């Protein structure tokens, strides 16, 4: 990741274009002359990655189709289901509703970075122990979301069900509200809450 490059991009207002031909590029004003592809640097699960992408590519498609990290799932592609949840600079977001090019210079965390067979993240182990899934399609998003959600509670970020906005505490109600952005079509919800509860209580 090169800060100088990023700063240069910001300062000169370098633009990128999808599918622009050479002639179009040459006729564009100098400050916005579009190269056909965006040059994007990401740090994904701690590893520096560099990509040449069409500016339309979502962060989710960059991860799945270009970096072959297929753990993050595409459920709706419209921010409605949470299957694509990843972290950007430590915070959970829907990677389907963000452009990869907007994340040049950012640190991305996916399910692949949390743990792997043999050394699972406690949240992964707890989901298995509690049967927190059936088909498993929503599960990577649920797990990434749950890990980030516990951090949000630790950081004192309130939720819709927090009674006193200035006194944020963990509870099953808080978990249900805070995880509402992750839909499970198999309705494994009770077991998901149980898994999260174990991790919170240090039992997983």
């Amino acid at each position, binding site marked *: 990741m090169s800060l100088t490059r990023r700063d240069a991009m910001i300062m000169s*207002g370098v633009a990128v274009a999808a599918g622009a031909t050479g002639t179009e590029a040459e006729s564009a004003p100098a400050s*916005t002359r579009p190269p056909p592809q965006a040059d994007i640097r990401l740090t994904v699960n701690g590893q520096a990655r560099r990509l040449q992408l069409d500016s339309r590519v979502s962060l989710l498609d960059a991860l799945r189709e270009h970096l072959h990290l297929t753990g993050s799932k595409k459920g709706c592609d419209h921010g409605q289901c*949470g299957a694509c949840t990843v972290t950007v600079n430590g915070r*959970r977001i829907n990677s389907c509703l*963000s452009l990869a090019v907007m994340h040049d210079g950012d640190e991305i965390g996916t399910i692949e970075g949390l743990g792997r067979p043999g050394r699972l993240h406690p949240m992964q182990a707890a989901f298995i122990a509690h049967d927190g899934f059936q088909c498993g399609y929503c599960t990577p998003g649920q797990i990434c979301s749950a890990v980030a959600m516990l951090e949000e509670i630790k950081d004192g970020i309130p939720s*819709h069900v927090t009674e006193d906005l200035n006194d944020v505490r963990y509870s099953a109600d808080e978990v249900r509200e805070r995880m*509402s952005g992750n839909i499970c079509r198999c309705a494994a919800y009770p077991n998901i809450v149980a898994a999260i509860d174990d991790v919170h209580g240090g039992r997983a």
Partner: protein
Amino acid sequence: MKPFTYQRAATPAEAARVAAEMPGSRFIAGGTNLLDLMKLQIETPGHLVDVNHLGLDRIEPTAEGGLRIGAMVRNTDLAADKRVRRDYAVLSRALLSGASAQLRNKATTGGNLLQRTRCPYFYEPSKPCNKRVPGSGCAALGGFNRNLAVLGTSDKCIATHPSDMAVAMRVLDATVETVSPDGTTRSIPIADFHRLPGDTPHIETQLGRGELITGVMLPAPIGGLHVYRKVRDRASYAFAVVSIAAVVAPGRARLAYGGLAHKPWRVEAAEALVADGAAAVAKTAFAGARTTPENAFKLPLAQRLTASVLADGKV
């Protein structure tokens, strides 16, 4: 999605200038509304100006004792800010009732104000919609309109503005601050910021071409009990059917409603009647309402929400 060029702007003035110069430009902030609409080709910008790196991500005290919220402050950070939780709790509550945690982590103050309607026909390109295609007609008037507007509507459009945050900002008398392509700045009271649909439902705010929201100013705290109550079809992660933002204290109340109109709905003259009870308030606040058989329920619902917050505040 249609192809577009992309650029990160360095300063607010540059962003505004580029947006005015490049045809078909749009600002992109969190992207949670714009990209959704671009995927459906309801929005088809030719150029995106990324406004995430303009240094507009701070919340600062003002000389008048209020707060200035940068346009790029995320919904999560605004709701969690200690000063907002303490002095403007209705705003924290409204934000926390909206969308999901993932979306709030991304959504910005400016983008939230400018999010577009959730009218089902706006999302359905096979149906006429004056907001999507000016002059094409309005499929909602004779269609499925249970969740559409009952106040300030026109024959051209009965859409609502879906933001929860904006309703709280209306009750707090916030001011929207902008910079224009020529570098001039101005402040727009939130009461005037969103427009009613009239004959031009595709024009939704007072913003000019290329005009960038730089921040939102909250006046000094006004005390009182802060309540945001949102009625929706499920308990979480759903838009409002009807909502109320209220700041209440014995003998006085400020009341703004969501889900009823093309903008947050507040009638100050109705607030003067709180001593006479919710029915008196509703009669004045909802005068001139035009309902359909499907959405007429919103008015009694809004009156009951009014009664509930007046009771909370022992008004």
